C-alpha cells in the first residue's frame, strides 16, 4: 500500500533539484553568477541563516514554532557587542552570546512546557519583549563593533571563511544529534504524537524544553556569525529572520505538523536555496522589492503541499467500529 521507497527517496531530494535549477537559471541570466567567488559569497551570506534555521528545525520537528529567534539574535548580538566595545575579548564574547541564547530559549520552553501555552503566542510575546530589551540596552543606537569582530567574519582557514566552517560544524553536529542520540530520536517521536510518546515513557517536558534551548542557542550563534560580517548591530538587526528560518526549514522538507524533516541535507539546502535566489536577484539587478513576494509565494506553495499530504494521511487512518 505504501508508495515505492525509490519514489520517496526522489521526493526527498526534490529540494536539491530545485536548488540546481535556480543556480542554472541565474547562471544563464548573468555570467558573474557561476563563479567560485560568488558561490563562496552565497555560502558566507547564508551561514547565519542556516545556523538559525538548524535550531528552528528542532522546534518544528516537535510541531512547535519559535517566532522570537530574530529578537534573540538581536538581544544576544547587542549585549555581546556592548561587552566587546567595553573591553571584553572577542573570544570570551562568543560563549557569553551562546549562554544568552540558551537563557532566552529556556524561557520560551518553560512557558510552553510549564503553562501549556500555545507556542506561537509565547514566542510572539518574547519576540516583542526581546526586541524591546535589545533596544533598551542599545538605546536604539547601532552598536559599532571593533575590528577584531570583523576578523571572525573575514578570517579564512584553508581558504574557507570561518563563518562557513562554523555553519558546517553546527549542521553536522545537529544531524548527528538527531540521527544518533536518544534525545534526537525522541524529538521525532514527540513530533509524531505527544500522546503516544507519553505512553511509551518518554519524558515529554524535558524533550520540549531542550528543543527550545537549542533553538535559542542556534539563534544567538547565527546572529553572532551574521554580525561578524556586518561589523555593527543596527536596531533592525534580525528583523524577519524568524520567517526566513522557518522558510529554510520548510523548504528543506521539515513538516509543520512535526515528526518529519532533516537538518542535513534538508534545512541546509533550503537556506542555500533562499540565499541563492536572493544573490541571483541582486546580481541580475532585479527589483529587490520583488524578493519578499517570491519567497512568500514559494513558502505558501510548500506549506500547501505539506498540509495536503498531512490531511490525506490523517483521512486514511480514520477510526473503524
Amino acid at each position, binding site marked *: 500500500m505504501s508508495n515505492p521507497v525509490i519514489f520517496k527517496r526522489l521526493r526527498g531530494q526534490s529540494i536539491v533539484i530545485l536548488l540546481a535549477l535556480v543556480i542554472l537559471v541565474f547562471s544563464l541570466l548573468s555570467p558573474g553568477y557561476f563563479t567560485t567567488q560568488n558561490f563562496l559569497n552565497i555560502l558566507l551570506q547564508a551561514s547565519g541563516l542556516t545556523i538559525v534555521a538548524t535550531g528552528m528545525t528542532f522546534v518544528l520537528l516537535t510541531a512547535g514554532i519559535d517566532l522570537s529567534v530574530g529578537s534573540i539574535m538581536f538581544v544576544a548580538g547587542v549585549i555581546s557587542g556592548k561587552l566587546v566595545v567595553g573591553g571584553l575579548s572577542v573570544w570570551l564574547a562568543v560563549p557569553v552570546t551562546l549562554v544568552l541564547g540558551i537563557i532566552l530559549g529556556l524561557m520560551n520552553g518553560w512557558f510552553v512546557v510549564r503553562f501549556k501555552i500555545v507556542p506561537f503566542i509565547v514566542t510572539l510575546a518574547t519576540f516583542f519583549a526581546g526586541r524591546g530589551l535589545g533596544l533598551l540596552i542599545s538605546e536604539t543606537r547601532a552598536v559599532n563593533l571593533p575590528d577584531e569582530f570583523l576578523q571572525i567574519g573575514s578570517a579564512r582557514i584553508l581558504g574557507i571563511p570561518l563563518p562557513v566552517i562554523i555553519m558546517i560544524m553546527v549542521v553536522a553536529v545537529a544531524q548527528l544529534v538527531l540521527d544518533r542520540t536518544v534525545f534526537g530520536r525522541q524529538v521525532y517521536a514527540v513530533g509524531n504524537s505527544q500522546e503516544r510518546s507519553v505512553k511509551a515513557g518518554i519524558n515529554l517536558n524535558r524533550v520540549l524544553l531542550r528543543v527550545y534551548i537549542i533553538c535559542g542557542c542556534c539563534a544567538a550563534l547565527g546572529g553572532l556569525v551574521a554580525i561578524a560580517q556586518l561589523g555593527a548591530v543596527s536596531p533592525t538587526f534580525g528583523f524577519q529572520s524568524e*520567517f526566513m528560518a522557518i522558510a529554510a526549514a520548510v523548504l528543506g522538507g521539515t513538516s509543520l505538523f512535526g515528526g518529519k524533516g532533516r537538518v542535513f541535507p534538508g534545512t541546509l539546502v533550503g537556506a542555500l536555496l533562499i540565499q541563492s535566489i536572493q544573490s541571483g536577484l541582486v546580481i541580475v539587478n532585479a527589483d529587490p522589492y520583488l*524578493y519578499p513576494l517570491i519567497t512568500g509565494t514559494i513558502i*505558501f506553495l510548500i506549506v500547501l503541499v505539506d498540509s495536503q499530504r498531512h490531511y490525506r494521511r490523517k483521512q486514511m487512518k480514520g477510526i473503524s467500529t
Partner: protein
Amino acid sequence: MTKSPNIILYLCLVYYLAAALVTPGFFTVNNTWNLLYNLMPLLIVAVGQMLVILTAGIDLSVTAIIAVTSVVGGYIMSADYSPVDSSSLAIALGILGMVITGGIIGLINGISVAKLKMPAFMVTLTGLMFFGGFAVWLTKSQNIYNLPAGLVDMPYTSFLGLPLPIWTGLLVLGLIYLVLNKSLLGEWIYAVGVNPKTSRISGVNVDLTIIMVYMLSGVTAAIGSVLYTARLETGSPVMGQNLLLDVIGAVVIGGTSLFGGKGLLQWTVAGAFFMAMLDNSLNLAGLSYFLIMIVKGVIILSAAMLNVWGERKVIWSA
C-alpha cells in the same frame, strides 16, 4: 453563555484611576480625546481579530492588510494618481477599494485555512510577509501624499458632537455586536470554535464560517487603515507595522480563549482600551517605546497564562 464580568473590566478601571493620579497630563480633556483617537482604529482591527481567534484560528497578516489597503486607498484618493477628479467621489471609491482589498486578502486567508487545511498561523505569517512586501513593491517604499482634504480633515470634523472616527468605531462595534450575538454566523462562530465536528454534524457550514471570519478580519483591518491613513494624511506601505502586538494583546488580555469558542465582544473592547491606555500613559510618563514593548510582551504572556489556566479550570470541573 455565562456572563461573568471578566477581570479585564476591573483592571481597566483601576489602571485608569492609577494613571490619572500618577501620570501628569493624563487626566485632561485633550489627552482623553488623544486616547480615543488612538483607541478607535486599534479597537476596530482587534474586534475583527477576535472573530478569527474565536474559531481557534489567528490572523497575523492584519498589519500587512492595513499597509496594502492604505496604499490602494492612497492611489485611488491622492491627487497625484487619482483616476477621478472630484474629491468626494475619490474618497468614496478609495474607501470602497480599501474595504474590497481587505475582503479579498481575508478571503485568500480563509480559503487556505478552511478548504486547503493549512495551519492558520503559517498562512497568515506568509501573508504578512507577502502582502507587506507587496505594499512596499507597489510604492517602491515611497509614501503617497496629497490626499483629498475631505479625508484629511475627517478626524477633526464632528457629526452630532462626535468626531467621525468615533462614529466609525461605534458603527463597526454595532455591526460586529449584531453579527456575534444576534446572527446565525455568530452562533456558528462560537460552535465551530468549541467543536467543529459536532457543529458539522449539526448542519453548521464550518468552511463558510471560517472563510467569513477571515474576510471580516480583513475588512475591519481595512476600515482601521482608513482611520490611520486619514490621520497621517499619507498612504504608507509600512502603515501599522508595529500594531500586531497591540491587536493580539487586546484580544488575549480581554480573556478571549486561544482554544476558541469563549469570548465576549465587551472583553475585547476592554482589552483594546487597556492596551491604548497603557501606550498613552507610559508614553506620557516618558517611557521610551521599547520599554513599553517589553511591558506589553510581559502582559501578553501573563494574560495567555491566565487564559490557559482558566481553560484548565473548566476541564477539571467537567
